[in-house]
């Protein structure tokens, strides 16, 4: 499956990576070659084969529903770019 200019822009928007029209053009060729390489998968018959998500087929471990963490908000927000009163600051969303 080839990838078109519009697909690159769509993926960039979905991933929230700023990409100009021109920059997107630069990726079309590289991404197409990667997808062409990946397309070898399509030749394999995988009917009735269960997808493998975890190499050991392990399932999620559960623990008792108890509080084990305490609030360390100040410590964890110390590495944030902009914080006020314990809140992360972002540009105004609602005028």
């Amino acid at each position: 499956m080839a990838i078109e200019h519009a697909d690159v822009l769509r993926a960039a928007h979905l991933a929230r990576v700023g990409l100009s029209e021109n920059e997107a053009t630069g990726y079309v060729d590289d991404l197409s070659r990667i997808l062409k390489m990946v397309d070898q998968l399509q030749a394999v018959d995988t009917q009735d084969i269960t997808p493998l998500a975890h190499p050991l087929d392990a399932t999620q471990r559960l623990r008792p529903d108890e509080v084990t963490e305490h609030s360390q908000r100040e410590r964890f927000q110390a590495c944030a770019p902009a914080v006020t009163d314990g809140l992360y600051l972002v540009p105004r969303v609602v005028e």
Partner: protein
Amino acid sequence: MHDKTLTELAAGLQAGEFSSRELCQAALERIEHLDGELNSFITVTAEQALANADAADRAREAGDAGPLAGLPLALKDIFCTQGVRTSCGSKMLDDFVSPYDATVVEKLRQAGAVNLGKTNMDEFAMGSSNENSFYGPVKNPWDLSAVPGGSSGGSAAAVAAGLVPAALGTDTGGSIRQPAAFCGITGLKPTYGRVSRYGMVAYASSLDQGGPLARNAADCALLLETIAGQDVRDSTSVARVVPDYTADLDTSLSGLKIGLPKEYFGDGLDPEVETAVREAIKVYESLGAKVCEVSLPHTHLAIPAYYVIAPAEASSNLSRYDGVRFGHRCDDPTDLEDLYKRTRAEGFGEEVKRRILIGTHTLSEGFFDAYYLKAQQVRRLIRQDFLDAFDEVDVLMGPTAPTPAFDLGAQKDPVSMYLQDIYTIAVNLAGIPGISVPAGFAGNRPVGLQVLAPHFAEAQLLGVAHQFQQATDWHLKRPAFGKETA
């Protein structure tokens, strides 16, 4: 002192031949003199290291020394270290200081190891040459015009140049084994789930695994024993007893069954690499092992499957870098969308963006089944190849990489760079352990022999590697670089 193994240095400390402060001071001076040229470290934590060395010396005097007490190490800059920057080789995390330690960092500290700093790497562990680092490429100490391999290139180069006796790296598609091969050292990727991933910056969570790079297999055993084990903070770490990894080192190889996957000796394999690997296998035969050919028929699908699964997981994992909670943030965002898009456009390098775009595309509506589910189905076939092979033989052997280290700047096309990982990548998809051991040279550049074993058979793997190192001296060869420096 810089030529010695961890095991030898531990004995020297124990015998009082030198103190940890003297040992760490000497290593820091070597880094100071040599790393300007090599660029294997992103951050050197000299002051903190010397304070920890003093603490280790005091603990030893008090008779309270841990198994790695006072031994200098380095950490790939992907392991979170409280109070010390963790950049992951990216502009995105250039000023990120983690509020907590990775589990392996905590375990190494408890064992008394002294961290000298954080090593260079491909950005977010995406690369096979260390040329994708925001902090510039690392050079290979065997030949400064060659790459050290990647993504744990800084760790491998630092050990090979004798800046540290050992370092930790991570391996998602070969990122410990391939740089170990290119730099002429020993590197172990443990079984998926053997070592906690807590505090290890995530790239592809179903493939990532941390492990040691060192001068020999015995040192890898010592380090694995310290860092392995279940961790309540990583739900994919496995509840399995950590055996004594040094116990099998001296087990005889008589009767060991070695399989040579015929797919690992095909087109694209450099003839000098093949010669070195075949010579290594003859050494095993002389030690009493039996060799036969096996087949891993889905090998050619490993790179295609990986380049769906790893970018898909990466696109999800890296969505956390949004300029809000930590990491880089663009100046003067006009709105939230602008904040996200410009932060990520500025913070990520080319290869990381490429993989985020591929991963986002293959996971998006209309493509998910054809790419992601298909790749996961093929992943099961690839794992089955290994399980079937291990019904017949004890271990598999072949080259770690198809060529020796290539020149800096030589691989310009991303797909040809991806093909470098042809012999290592299937191992991560299957989740089995693998080790690369020095096995000769192609010209002036080292060649690695890769040995693979069934899930959780690290003890056997380390023994098979150690026996080779008792019979050969490839692991004792040192580059000319830095030889004159104390």
